[in-house]
C-alpha cells in the first residue's frame, strides 16, 4: 500500500513537471504563432482606410494604383495622369469637403441624402478627377469607376521609405526608416560600449587587485538592474541637453543620445560575460606565456583575449541584442521621427519604440495594428538571429577547447 502511494506520488510529480514544461513551450509557440499570424495579415490588406473608396471617371484608362502613388497625388507630387499610366492630363483632386465647391447645400441635402448622386454626377462630368470618399456615399448606379488598390507588398513594406500608417487617403507602410533607425542606434551603441566594455573587462580580470574587483564588479552588475525607464529619464535630463548644447542642434533628441543610453545599458552584459570568459583562461596558459618571457600585455592580447574571444563575442552580441530590443529608454531620447537618418545627430525612431508608441492608437485588427505586428515579427527575427549566433559561437567554443 505504501509503495503504491509512493509510486502514485512520483507519477503525480512527474506529471506536474511535464505539465509545466509543456505549458511553457506551448506559450512560446502560441505567442510566436499569434505574432506571425497578425503580422503576415498586413500583406492581405489594402493600404487604404477601411470603408473608403477611391473613384475616377469611367473613361480614365488607369486601373490600378499603389498607396505611394495615391499619397503622391494627394501631396501634389504627381500632377498628371501620365505619370501613373494614364492619358496626359492634369489630375483634379477631390476630397469630400470639396463637394460644396461643386454643388449647393440643397442638392446635397440636409442629411447628405443627395450626396451619393452628386458624387456620381460629379465624377462622371469631370474626366480628370480622382475622388476619395466613404464607401457609404457610393451611389447604387455609380457612373464612375472605383480604382483598384494594390495590396501591401513585401517590397513596398521593406523597401518603402516612409512610415506614416495613419496617413489619408493611403497609409504609408515603409519600414525602412524604422529598421535603419534601429540599426543606427544599435550600431552606435555597440561602437561606444564595445571598446569601453572590453577595456573594463580586461582591467577587472587581469589587472585590478582582488579588492578593487570585489567592489567594481557588483557595482557594474547593478547597472544591469536599473529599470530602463530610469535610463531614459537620465538620458532625457542629462544627455539630451548636453548633445543639444555641444553640437548646437535645434533638438537634442537624436540617434546619438539613444546610442549613448543603449551603450550604457549594454555595458554590464558585455563586461560581465567577457570578464568571466577572460577569467576562465586557465592559469597554466597565462603562466606558460609569462614563463616564455612575454610581458603582461603580450600575455593579455596573445593568450587571454584569443582564448576568451568566443566569450567576448557572445557578450558583445548579447549586448547588441539588448540594445536592439530596448524600448522605453530609446523612446524617450531618440526623438521618434520616422525618417531615414542621414547622421547620428538627427532624430530617429526604432522598431520597438514605434510599437510601444503607436499600438495604443491603432484600432484592433486594422491595417495599422497588423503593420505593428509585422514590425514585431521583424524584431523577433533579428533577435532570433542574434541568439542563434551566440549559440553557434559558444558551441564552437566548446569544440575548440577539446
Amino acid at each position: 500500500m505504501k509503495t503504491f502511494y509512493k509510486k502514485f506520488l512520483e507519477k503525480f510529480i512527474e506529471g506536474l513537471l511535464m505539465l509545466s514544461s509543456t505549458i511553457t513551450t506551448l506559450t512560446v509557440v502560441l505567442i510566436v504563432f499569434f505574432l506571425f499570424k497578425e503580422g503576415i495579415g498586413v500583406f492581405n490588406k489594402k493600404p487604404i482606410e477601411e470603408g473608403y473608396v477611391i473613384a475616377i471617371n469611367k473613361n480614365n484608362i488607369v486601373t490600378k494604383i499603389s498607396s505611394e502613388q495615391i499619397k503622391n497625388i494627394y501631396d501634389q507630387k504627381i500632377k498628371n495622369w501620365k505619370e501613373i499610366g494614364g492619358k496626359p492630363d492634369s489630375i483634379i483632386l477631390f476630397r469630400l469637403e470639396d463637394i460644396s465647391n461643386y454643388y449647393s447645400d440643397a442638392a446635397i441635402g440636409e442629411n447628405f441624402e443627395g450626396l451619393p448622386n452628386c458624387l456620381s454626377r460629379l465624377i462622371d462630368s469631370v474626366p480628370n478627377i480622382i475622388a476619395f470618399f466613404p464607401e457609404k456615399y457610393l451611389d447604387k448606379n455609380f457612373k464612375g469607376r472605383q480604382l483598384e488598390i494594390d495590396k501591401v507588398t513585401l517590397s513596398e513594406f521593406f523597401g518603402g521609405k516612409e512610415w506614416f500608417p495613419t496617413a489619408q487617403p493611403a497609409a504609408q507602410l515603409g519600414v525602412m526608416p524604422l529598421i535603419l533607425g534601429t540599426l543606427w542606434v544599435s550600431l552606435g551603441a555597440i561602437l561606444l560600449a564595445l571598446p569601453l566594455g572590453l577595456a573594463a573587462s580586461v582591467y577587472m580580470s587581469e589587472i585590478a587587485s582582488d579588492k578593487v574587483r570585489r567592489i567594481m564588479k557588483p557595482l557594474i552588475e547593478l547597472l544591469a538592474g536599473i529599470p530602463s525607464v530610469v535610463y531614459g529619464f537620465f538620458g532625457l535630463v542629462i544627455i539630451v541637453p548636453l548633445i543639444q548644447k555641444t553640437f548646437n542642434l535645434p533638438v537634442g533628441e537624436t540617434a546619438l543620445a539613444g546610442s549613448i543610453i543603449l551603450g550604457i545599458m549594454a555595458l554590464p552584459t558585455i563586461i560581465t560575460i567577457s570578464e568571466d570568459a577572460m577569467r576562465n583562461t586557465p592559469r597554466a596558459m597565462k603562466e606558460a606565456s609569462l614563463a616564455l618571457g612575454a610581458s603582461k600585455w603580450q600575455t593579455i592580447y596573445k593568450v587571454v583575449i584569443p582564448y576568451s574571444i568566443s566569450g567576448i563575442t557572445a557578450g558583445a552580441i548579447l549586448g547588441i541584442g539588448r540594445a536592439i530590443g530596448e524600448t522605453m529608454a530609446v523612446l524617450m531620447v531618440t526623438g521618434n521621427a520616422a525618417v531615414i537618418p542621414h547622421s547620428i545627430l538627427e532624430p530617429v525612431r526604432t522598431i520597438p519604440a514605434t510599437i510601444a508608441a503607436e499600438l495604443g492608437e491603432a484600432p484592433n485588427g486594422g491595417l495599422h495594428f497588423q503593420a505593428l505586428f509585422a514590425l514585431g515579427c521583424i524584431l523577433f527575427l533579428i533577435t532570433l538571429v542574434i541568439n542563434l549566433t551566440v549559440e553557434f559561437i559558444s558551441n564552437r567554443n566548446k569544440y575548440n577547447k577539446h
Partner: protein
Amino acid sequence: MYKIESKNVDFFYGASQALKNINIAFKPNTVTALIGPSGCGKSTYLRLFNRMNDLIDNTKIGGQILIDGEDIYAKGVNVDSLRKKVGMVFQKPNPFPKTIFENVAYGLRVNGITDKKFIEERVETSIKQVVLWDEVKDKLKKSAFELSGGQQQRLCIARALAIQPSVILMDEPTSALDPISTAKVEELIYELKAKYTIVIVTHNMQQAGRVSDTTAFLYMGELIEYGNTKTIFTNPKIERTQNYITGRFG
C-alpha cells in the same frame, strides 16, 4: 662558479612561512632534483627562480637568489628577460590553443623576432631537440591539442627550449604522463643536461634517482639534506631523508 645560488631564502604566503632559510648552490649543466612530501615547498622554491611567485598576491621573499651571479630579486631587474633565460615546464602539459608551430614560435614572437626563416629554423631545431620532429613534421599547422599528453609535454619543453634559456625549471613534468611518455621525457632530460642547468621537482623517487646528479630533500619548508644523488639515495646522512626515500613516510 655556480649557475644558481640561493642564499638564506625565506618565503612567505601572507603570514605563513613556506620556505625557511634555504641555501643551495646549483652547478651548471647538472640536473638537480627537489624531492619531498606534498606541501613541503619544493614547487614554491622552484618558482622563485623565474619569479613566477610574483603573480601571487601578498607574498614576500627574504634572502637572495643569484643566477649567473646576479640577484634576480634586485631592484630594476627585468623580469621578462629573466624568464627568457630561465625556461619552465609545468606539471600538466599546457600548450596554447594554437598550432603546433605557433606554440613553439610563441616565445620567439613575443621577444620581437619577426624573421620568418629564423623562426622556422629555430622551431625545427627545438622540436628535433625533444625528439618530436618525426611525429609532428607533417602536422605543424594543426592544433597542439591534437597531440597526445606525452607529445604535448615534449612540445612544451620544445617551446621552452626555443628561446634558448640557460636554465630549465621542471615542475613535476611527468606527473600527468603514462610510463612510456615518462621514459621519453626522462631520456630527454638526461640529454638536455649537456646544454642546460636543470632543476626538477618530482614526487617520483625512482625518477629523481634516474635523472638527477644532485638531490635536495625538503621537508616543511626546510632543506633537510642536499648532496650527490647517489649518496642521498644509498647513504643519506639524516634519518628523515632515509625514511622518506624508502617510503616510510611522505
